[in-house]
C-alpha cells in the first residue's frame, strides 16, 4: 500500500507544533499502525532526521501506553481497538492519514505524539484503591462475591488508562476513566468501607487536574478500546451524590 501521512511534530511542550507530510511506500496491510510508524522512523533516522516520538510498549492492546488521534478518531477507525492492535488493512490503498496527539488541557504534549497523562495517576492516588495492608488479609474464599457482580466489576476494571476517553470527549472529561475505577471497587464488598470517601476524593481530583465536566456526549464510550460502558459515569455520579449528601469530607462513613 502507499500512504500519505500528516503527522503532528512538536519538539517540546513549549515549542510550536505543525503537521508534517510524509509519503510512505510499500506498506504491508498486515503491519500494525505502530509498525508502520516504526518503518517511517527507520527511514527518518537513516536520513539523519529525528524520528517521530510516540508512546508504546506492550503492543498487545493491554498496557495503555499507545494512543493517538488518527483522522480525528482516538485510536483510529476500528471500534474497541488500541492503536497497537490497529492494522493497516483497515485503510484503503492511497489513504491520506492525519496523526495527532491526544488533545486535552490535562494532557500536555511532551513531544510529537507523546503526552503527559500523570493526572490519571493522581486521580487513582486520591482514592482509587482499597486500603489493605500486606500480609493480614483473610482467606480469599471468606469474601464470597456473586459471579455476576465480579463479572460486572471486571468489565470496568479492565480499563487500560490510555486516555482515549479524554481525547475523544469534546469537554476533555475524565469521567469514564474515573467512573470505571469507582464502579470496579464499588461493585465489590472490599470496596464498600471507603466508597463515599473514594467518590468524593476522586471526583475532586479529576476537577482539580483540569479535566472538563461530563455532558453525556458518549464519545468516550465509542473511543474506549476496552468498550467500557458509559454506565460507569452514571454510577460515579450516583456515588458522588450520595457521598455528598451523607459522608463527611474526609473520613467517609460506610455505605449502607
Amino acid at each position: 500500500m502507499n500512504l500519505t501521512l500528516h503527522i503532528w511534530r512538536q519538539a517540546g511542550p513549549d515549542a510550536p507544533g505543525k503537521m508534517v507530510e510524509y509519503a510512505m511506500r510499500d506498506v504491508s496491510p498486515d503491519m500494525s499502525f505502530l509498525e508502520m510508524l516504526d518503518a517511517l522512523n527507520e527511514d527518518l533516522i537513516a536520513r539523519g532526521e529525528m524520528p517521530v516520538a510516540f508512546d508504546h510498549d506492550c503492543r498487545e492492546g493491554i498496557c495503555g501506553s499507545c494512543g493517538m488521534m488518527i483522522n480525528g478518531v482516538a485510536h483510529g477507525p476500528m471500534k474497541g481497538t488500541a492503536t497497537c492492535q490497529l492494522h493497516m488493512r483497515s485503510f484503503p490503498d492511497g489513504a491520506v492519514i492525519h496523526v495527532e496527539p491526544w488533545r486535552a488541557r490535562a494532557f500536555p504534549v511532551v513531544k510529537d505524539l507523546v503526552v503527559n497523562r500523570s493526572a490519571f495517576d493522581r486521580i487513582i492516588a486520591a482514592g482509587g484503591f482499597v486500603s489493605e495492608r500486606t500480609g493480614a488479609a483473610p482467606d480469599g474464599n471468606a469474601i464470597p462475591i456473586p459471579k455476576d457482580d465480579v463479572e460486572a466489576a471486571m468489565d470496568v476494571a479492565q480499563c487500560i488508562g490510555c486516555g482515549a476517553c479524554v481525547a475523544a470527549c469534546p469537554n476533555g472529561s475524565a469521567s469514564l476513566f474515573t467512573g470505571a475505577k469507582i464502579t470496579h471497587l464499588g461493585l465489590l464488598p472490599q470496596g464498600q468501607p471507603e466508597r463515599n470517601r473514594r467518590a468524593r476524593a476522586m471526583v475532586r481530583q479529576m476537577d482539580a487536574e483540569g479535566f472538563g465536566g461530563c455532558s453525556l456526549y458518549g464519545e468516550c464510550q465509542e473511543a474506549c478500546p476496552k468498550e467500557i460502558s458509559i454506565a460507569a459515569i452514571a454510577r460515579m455520579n450516583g456515588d458522588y451524590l450520595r457521598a455528598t449528601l451523607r459522608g463527611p469530607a474526609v473520613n467517609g462513613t460506610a455505605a449502607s
Partner: protein
Amino acid sequence: MTLDSAIPSGPIEQKWDRHRFEMKLVNPANKRKHTVLVVGSGLAGASAAATLSELGYRVKCFCFQDSPRRAHSIAAQGGINAAKNYQNDGDSIFRLFYDTVKGGDFRSREANVYRLAQISVNIIDQCVAQGVPFAREYGGLLANRSFGGAQVSRTFYARGQTGQQLLLGAYQALEKQIAAGGITMYPRTEMLDLVVIDGRARGIVTRDLVTGALDVHLGDAVVLGTGGYGNAFYLSTNAKGSNATAIWRAHKRGAAFANPCYTQIHPTCIPVSGHYQSKLTLMSESLRNDGRVWVPKRQGDTRTPDQIPENERDYYLERRYPSFGNLAPRDIASRAAKQVCDEGRGVGPYGLGVYLDFADAIKRLGEQPIRERYGNLFEMYQRITDENPYVVPMRIYPAVHYTMGGLWVDYNLMSTIPGLFVIGEANFSDHGANRLGASALMQGLADGYFIVPATVSNYIASARPAPVTAGHAEARGAMEAVEQRTTRLLGVKGRRTVDAFHRELGKLLWDDCGMARDAEGLSRALASIPALREEFWQNVTVPGSGAELNQGLEKAARVADFFELGELMCRDALHRDESCGVHFREEYQTPDGEALRDDEHFAYVAAWSWRGEGQEPCLLKEPLDFEYVHLATRSYK
C-alpha cells in the same frame, strides 16, 4: 567472590518461618530514617515499594514508562498459581513445590521454591482483599483452571487479563502510598548505573527520559525489579521497552549473573508474518485446556484444515505425552512444535506454525462457554491475523517469552553486592531451567509483598549503613561513566539504525541460542557477536541529543547492553554440556528426542562475574542439593 546461598537450616517446611523469626527488625521510629530505592514498578517492584512504604521506610520508585501502571506484568494473561486446594483435587504446598522443582528440570534451589509455594496461598488472599476481580463460581467462591505442567487446577485468573488485574492491585497500593507521602515516584526515568560505596549498593544513576538530566539517588538499599531480558532476541513476547540495562549495569559493578542461557520459549504465540514485525503476541497457555494441537501427518500438506480428515491429523502432544497431552510443559510443547515444523509438517505461510484447534471444544460445550473463557484472546488473534478462530483453527508457533536467568541472589534475594536486592524476573531464583505457566506472577508478588520487605529490614538492621552524599567519589564516577557512554553513542554518527543491529543480533541469538543449541552454533555465535558489537560502536546512528526526549538514544543504550549479555548467554549455553529444561543441547538427548540431563556434572547454578571489557567472565558454581524432590528423569508421558 564466593556464592553463599544463605539457606536457613532446618526442615524445608520451617525454613522461612524460622528465618523470619531470626531476622532482625528495624524499630518503627527508625524506619523513616532509611531510604530504599526500588527500580521497576511491575508486580515485583510495585508490590515491594508499596509494602516497604507501608512498613515505614522512605521509598523512591523508578520506572521508564509514563506511569507505573504500564509495567510489562500488565500483559500476563493466563493466571497465578496458588496451592489453595480449593478444588479438592489433591493440591498442596508440597505438590506445588514438587511440580515447580520438577518443571524446572532440577535446576532451581529447593528452599526458595518451597517458600514460593508456601507464600502463594497468602498472595491470593492479599489480592482478593485489594479488590482484584478474580473469576468466581456461581456460589461466589474463587474459580480455578489448569495450566501446563500440572495435573491439578490451581490457577486463579481474571479472564485473560490476570497480570493486568494483579498489577493494578499493586499499582493502586503504590499510588495509595504515594498519596500518603511515603513513596516518591519517578516515572519516565531510567536507571543507567549502580553506585557501589565501600562494597555496598548505595545508589543509582538515572536519566530523566523527558529532559535528559542525569541524577544520582542515594539510599540504604537498592531493589531491582526490572524484569527479564528476552528482548535481546529482538522478536519476543516482551513489551518493546523491557530491557536488561539495570541488571546488566549492576552486573558490571559486581553482581554475578546466573544461568543466562535459560530462556523460556512459549509454545503458543502468533507466528511471524513479515520482516517488519516488531514483536510477537502471546496467546495464553490456558487455551491449551480446550484447544487441541495438531499438524497434518503428511509433509507439505497444503490443504486447508477443514479438508484434512481426522485420520490424517497428528495430535502430536496427545500422541507423545498421553497423560499430560496438550498440557505438557512449555519447553516440551515448544520443542515438539519445532520438531514437526522441521519435519516439513508445519502450517501457515512460512511453514512455521501448528494448529491450535477449538472445534472439538465448541462441539462439546457450544460457542458461548468458549467465548466466556477466552473471548478477548480470540478477538486479539483475529485482529492480528484476520482469521476467525471460532471457525478456523488458530495457528501458533513458539516464541521467546521469559528469562529464568538473571542476577544471582541468595535466599534473602540479595545479590553478590551487599544491599542490592533483585526480585521477580530480574533474578534467577525460583524457576530453574524452565518456568511453569502462572508461576511468574506468583514469584513477582511473593518477592515484592512478602519476601523482600522482610529481608531488606534484616539487612538494614544488621548492616547499619552509614550516611553517604552525592559528592562521594563513587557516585561522581558512576555519573561520569554514564555521561561518557551517552556521548560516545551520540558521537558515532554512522549509517545503520539501532533496530537494524538489534534485528541482526536477535536472529543470531535465535538461530544459535534459541530452542535448540549445539557447540558448533554457539561457538559461531561467540565469534560473530563481538564482531557485530564492534560494528555497532563504529557504525550506529543515533540522531538528536542527550538533553531531550530521545527514544532512539534510549534504545541504543539498551541494545549495546544486549550485545554484551547475548555473548554471555551463548557462553553459558556452551559450557553447559547437558540438556535441561529449555536449554536443549542437540548433542545431549535421549533416543526419543527428550532432554538428557547430566546431574553428576551440572547440578549447579552457573553464576558469571564480570572481569572487564573484552575479558572472559569468571564462572562461579552454586551446587544444588535435592533433598526433598529426588533427582529423576522428567516424564510427562
